């Protein structure tokens, strides 16, 4: 089953603008993307709907990582997923050009909190995205196998339409 992630160009610009803002103590910003889902002939399509920055006060001061969300950040995102029946994707950026990759810390943390979204919004697809300045990489949590699977394709919809294949495999 192929997974395609689509978002509007204006929304991607908004995401980059927000993730570029400095934080009082965290080295990077984190956020969630609330998405809707659709079945396609070849699999599923994840459609980005709303960008939800983590509140300033929901970061924890942890100098060993770029940014650490507190439990209130996760709770707010879970509440949003429940209230809006949203597919939730954690999102952050690595500040470079070219294909981004999740770090070991990113993967460990995502494996901890992403499955929780299935408890409040079951039947949906949740996951995590990491951006670079010009590319996207993401994973969705498959509840059947209890493993992450890479998103196969990313489409930025605007002038121009940019289609990016996943380059992790």
């Amino acid at each position: 089953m192929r997974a395609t992630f689509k978002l509007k160009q204006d929304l991607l610009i908004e995401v980059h603008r927000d993730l570029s803002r400095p934080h009082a103590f965290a080295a990077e910003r984190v956020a969630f993307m609330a998405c809707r889902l659709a079945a396609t002939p070849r699999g599923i399509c994840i459609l980005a709907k709303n960008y939800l920055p983590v509140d300033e006060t929901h970061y924890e001061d942890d100098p060993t990582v770029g940014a650490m969300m507190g439990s209130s950040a996760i709770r707010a995102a879970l509440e949003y997923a429940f209230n809006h029946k949203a597919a939730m994707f954690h999102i952050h950026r690595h500040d470079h050009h070219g294909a981004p990759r999740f770090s070991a810390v990113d993967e460990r943390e995502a494996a901890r909190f992403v499955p929780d979204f299935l408890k409040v919004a079951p039947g949906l697809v949740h996951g995590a995205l990491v951006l670079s300045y010009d590319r996207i990489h993401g994973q969705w949590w498959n509840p059947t196998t209890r493993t992450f699977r890479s998103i196969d394709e990313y489409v930025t919809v605007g002038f121009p339409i940019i289609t990016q294949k996943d380059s992790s495999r």
Partner: protein
Amino acid sequence: MNDLSRQSFLGADCDMVVTGTTAAIVGLCGGGSHVAQQLAHIGIGRFVLCDPDVVEGSNLNRMVGAVAGDAVLSRAKVDVIAERILAINPAAEIARCKGPWQEFSGELRGATSVFGCVDNYADRAQLETMCRRFLIPYIDIGMDVTEFGSGGFAISGQVIVSMPGRACMRCLGFLTDALLTAEAQRYGAAGGKPQVVWPNGVLASAAVGKFMSMILPWYGCGTGPAIMTEYDGNTGQLFASRRLLTLEGRRCAHFDGPDDLGDPFFRLLPGA
């Protein structure tokens, strides 16, 4: 596969982009038949062709690629155009959707872009809504022949790019409730509207140009094509619609509701 070297200025990855692109065309007569064949020449790799009709003698004045024998045999327009595409590019993959496009929304939602070449406002409104729901750029073309009081005629038309997040056909004032209501009241009463081949060719070429500028922008920078181009068939001029002047800086509010994206009742099936 075709030799696409003469269009290599479109970018080093031109071949890969065009073969990986899926173009859906709804309506395969005057406008859609032109669009389909131009896209085949460009090397577009996958097509979704939708039309419920068969070729009739009255289509032959404008359906490029159709011949008299197609009308005699009442061949499906989808099959005739698929045959033309494959004659140009035998490697093209084609989904043949012979019926109302609404029955093939599964095929349409996988498209890179949808061309609407239909002749009524209700279909346009529904196609745009479907495309916005799945974040698909929708390109609409249409022409009209209007009789002057003095006995002359005016040929006009338009190409609209409805890009998710940008102005829609309602923002542009092209679709209104009044138009849709009036059309619904005329349902079944309208005869065949006047249609001729050359305005369809002009509008289809403009539409294909806008599509190509979206998938392989050759101009390096800028904001992309005008989202509404109008055609004055009496003077032979294409021009950016003056309606665009009223939209500067405005966001579309017609497709921004909480449930306007995706399948409303999507559930991932166990074992997926």
